[in-house]
């Protein structure tokens, strides 16, 4: 079960990092003047579900059936994304 979640998340790791970093950079250079690492940490929490929506819902919707056939549903898959990215984001914020 964990291996399937890891496989699902593998596709999201790099795009999520890019989106989170973009949010961090936007926070640093634009209105909020947030420190880059802190902005990226907060960005992670938002970027995970957004990236999943873009990568899976819009671009590879049929791939959901691979995970559905293994007993997962969308709530569980979104849940795994949220949990994983909250952990990443919190670790980055703690580091900051």
């Amino acid at each position, binding site marked *: 079960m964990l291996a399937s979640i890891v496989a699902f998340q593998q596709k999201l790791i790099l795009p999520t990092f890019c989106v989170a970093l973009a949010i961090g950079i936007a926070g640093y250079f634009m209105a909020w003047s947030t420190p880059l690492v802190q902005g990226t940490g907060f960005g992670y929490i938002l970027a995970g579900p957004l990236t999943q929506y873009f990568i899976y819902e819009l671009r590879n919707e*049929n*791939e*959901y*059936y*691979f995970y*559905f*056939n293994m007993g997962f*549903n969308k709530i569980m898959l979104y849940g795994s994304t949220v949990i994983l990215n909250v952990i990443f984001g919190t670790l980055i914020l703690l580091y900051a």
Partner: protein
Amino acid sequence: MHELYVDSVCKSFGTNQVLNDIFISCKPGEIIGLFGRNGCGKTTLLKIIFGSLRAENKFIRVNGRIVQTLRENNNKIAYLPQKNFLPSHLQIKKIVDLFCKPPQANSLKNNPHVKPFLHRKSNETSGGERRMIELLLILNSSAQYILIDEPFNGVEPLYKEEIKNNIQKHSQYKGIIITDHDYLSIVAIATKVMLLQDGSIKETKTGDELIKVNYLGGA
């Protein structure tokens, strides 16, 4: 009691009632061929049975246990969708290991239709090769009931024979509902033929009946 029992399925899209009080049942050992014209609701019905699509009303019982959602089907029902569903970022070997239990995974990895592609990603295989791998994965899953949506789509004749053989082989201990427009291939393996028309479903005994109800053109 080993049976997939589906009753009272109703589904509409806007004002269009696609499925109206559908009943279908399937036992291990049966291959049910489901026919119907484009847009009549075959895929919708399979998705509702699988649990990935909501219906206005449905009653689904798997081996005596009522199933309402995808999660509750507890891997008893597997669904092969029309389009490629293999994750494009994973190698076939990894996909097989994730999808099947070890004994089935090991035998599948030695299958001549799978073995040459084990170290390729799914998007590095052709449409026909991928379809064959998808079908073998679904048939070798732990599910007791298999819903197969257009398995012959884009597949060369030689592969069609292999697909039919594999479906028949696995139907000995699994219940299979299959839909495809390749009428002859389905009729050759089906133990029962059903026609979905105007939102309702009925069993047909002969090809002539399919002509009569306008699914096939008469000579």
